[in-house]
């Protein structure tokens, strides 16, 4: 297990390590060894489901869904305290998919957690479905509709501020794309979260180094990315976004509601797990023909066999 790199001095006093524990109390599977195997398997299942949704009428955002798959799986399987049978449970954790185009990954995560029947995933993008290309608020488990980049972190600031004010125990998590960080609204939110010491808000950056038109560093360089967040007052944890243990460790190291907020920069691979798509800008949005789907799935399964 690799541990996350703590890149700023941390207010250890303010930290509470209870996150994973709490999640467990709201989960059926409590045995940690089982949980670990299950989580990796869930991530694999999520990837298959993403590819399946990519066969929908207009395809889906395959690359950025696959890069988020591991971290979303850890979040939904082990971290987030949620009650699928009571989606509005006041003490739940709030998750906001600011990179709303990765909706396929979110739907898979929600279904794994029991918010949606797995069969419903087949309706992705079809007429009359609840599973739009970007998440709709009326879907249980979705806090806010997203899809226009750069909205999520402000929503998270408001949410975390309200949770602190009302004394509820839930945390707020916001997942953003790296290209998304080019939106100025992200930095407004970042500045205010740090100023307000919203330790209950955690940002996660899916650092897959690709935006639609190519390599972020060629298109609109984001480096030094940790430096940007630090200069905006955040504590930065840089982790391998496909290392489940590293992700777990990061999520276990979050501050309390008045601590310095943490951003987890998850180094990821766009299209992760599917050799056809890995690190390919074309993987951003793909409509998988039956043939392409077959090849992609075969590649995904071969890779996973090789790794286990």
């Amino acid at each position, binding site marked *: 297990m690799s541990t996350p790199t703590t890149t700023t001095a941390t207010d250890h006093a303010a930290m509470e390590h209870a996150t994973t524990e709490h999640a467990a109390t709201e989960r059926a599977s409590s045995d940690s060894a089982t949980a670990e195997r299950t989580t990796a398997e869930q991530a694999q299942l999520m990837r298959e489901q993403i590819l399946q949704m990519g066969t929908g009428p207009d395809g889906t955002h395959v690359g950025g869904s696959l890069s988020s798959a591991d971290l979303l799986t850890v979040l939904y399987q082990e971290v987030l305290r949620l009650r699928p049978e009571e989606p509005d449970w006041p003490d739940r954790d709030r998750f906001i998919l600011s990179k709303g185009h990765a909706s396929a990954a979110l739907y898979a995560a929600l279904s794994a957690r029991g918010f949606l029947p797995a069969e419903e995933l087949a309706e992705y993008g079809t007429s009359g479905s609840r599973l739009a290309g970007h998440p709709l*608020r009326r879907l249980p488990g979705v*806090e*806010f*509709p997203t899809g*226009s980049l*750069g*909205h999520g*972190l*402000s*929503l*998270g*600031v*408001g*949410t*975390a*501020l*309200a*949770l602190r*004010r*009302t004394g*509820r125990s839930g945390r707020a998590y916001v997942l953003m794309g790296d290209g998304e960080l080019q939106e*100025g*609204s992200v930095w*407004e*939110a970042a*500045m*205010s979260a740090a*100023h*307000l010491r919203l330790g209950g808000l955690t940002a996660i950056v899916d650092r897959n180094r690709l935006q639609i038109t190519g390599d972020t560093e060629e298109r609109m360089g984001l480096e030094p990315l940790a430096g940007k967040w630090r200069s905006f007052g955040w504590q930065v944890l840089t982790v391998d976004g496909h290392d489940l243990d590293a992700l777990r460790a990061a999520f276990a190291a979050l501050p309390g509601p008045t601590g310095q907020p943490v951003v987890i920069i998850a180094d990821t691979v766009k299209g992760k797990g599917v050799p056809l798509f890995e690190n390919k800008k074309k993987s951003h949005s793909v409509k998988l023909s039956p043939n392409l789907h077959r090849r992609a799935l075969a590649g995904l399964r071969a890779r996973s066999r090789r790794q286990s």
Partner: protein
Amino acid sequence: MTDWQERYATATRDVYRATLLDIAKSDTRVFCVDTDMGGLEDGFEAELPDQYVNVGIAEANLMGVSAGLAAEGLLPFANTIASFAATRACEQVKVDIAGNALPVRIVGTHGGFSAGHYGPTHHAVEDVAIMRSLPNLTVLVPADAAETEYAVRALADTEQLPGPVYLRLGRKATPLVHRGPYTFRIGQADLLRPGRDVTLVASGPVPVAESVAAAELLAGRGIAARVLNLHTVKPLDAEAVLSAARETAGLVTVEDHLVTGGLGGAVAELTAAHHPCRVHRIGVPDGFHDQVGTETELLARAGVTAPAIAGAAEEVMRERN
């Protein structure tokens, strides 16, 4: 001066602040979200620091944060300048607040030309058109300080108003419309003067005041002009407007806003659909209004004056015949 007159001889902005503080004292859901407006910190924050947050000079953040607060059951009042609410933060209002039908109260000062010599970046003459095009939003344009107090108190009632509201305020004291308490109901036009010949439909402080004065002028010429104060531009009081369309020769709309897309646009759309009649729209013409002047001077240049309104009413009557 009556008590009423003395109490409300002030800017809509000022009475808003006092009323907000008052309701917040007994309603702990009320949350004042500031973007460095100046003034809220001395009154509101000083008294109720736990119900105040400054999110920076950052209007997009203002709307997103307010949406987050509202989703958690608080009742945020999001404070900025009208033009910034409608344009700078437009998408956040659309997607985060309006789309989710969250009870955020978006309060924009400097409505219309009330920023006076501050110039075109601070004027809001397209805000009503924009806000009217966003889903679920109630759009309120109080005509004076008293009406502002009624409106702000109404905003605290989330049973009556479970969705988002845009409240458009001014900057300086403007004339009082009523001499004492009256019935204010959101969505219901305020009949200021009955009349069977022609109807003046107005919203906003100067437009309403000038319309009342225009009705006086018309009365002197033997014309009975009905005057409606449409403090609620959305939802529009269809019954009041269509009755006026049926019962009088036609309508003159008067607003401190573009002649397109705002009150005049809403009235034209409604009547054209259900009872076509002449609608003469008085307001700000299309263009970038980079003239220096006070609110009333700038509006006078745009034709928002009692004589111009009276003239338009006469024209509407002539054309009917």
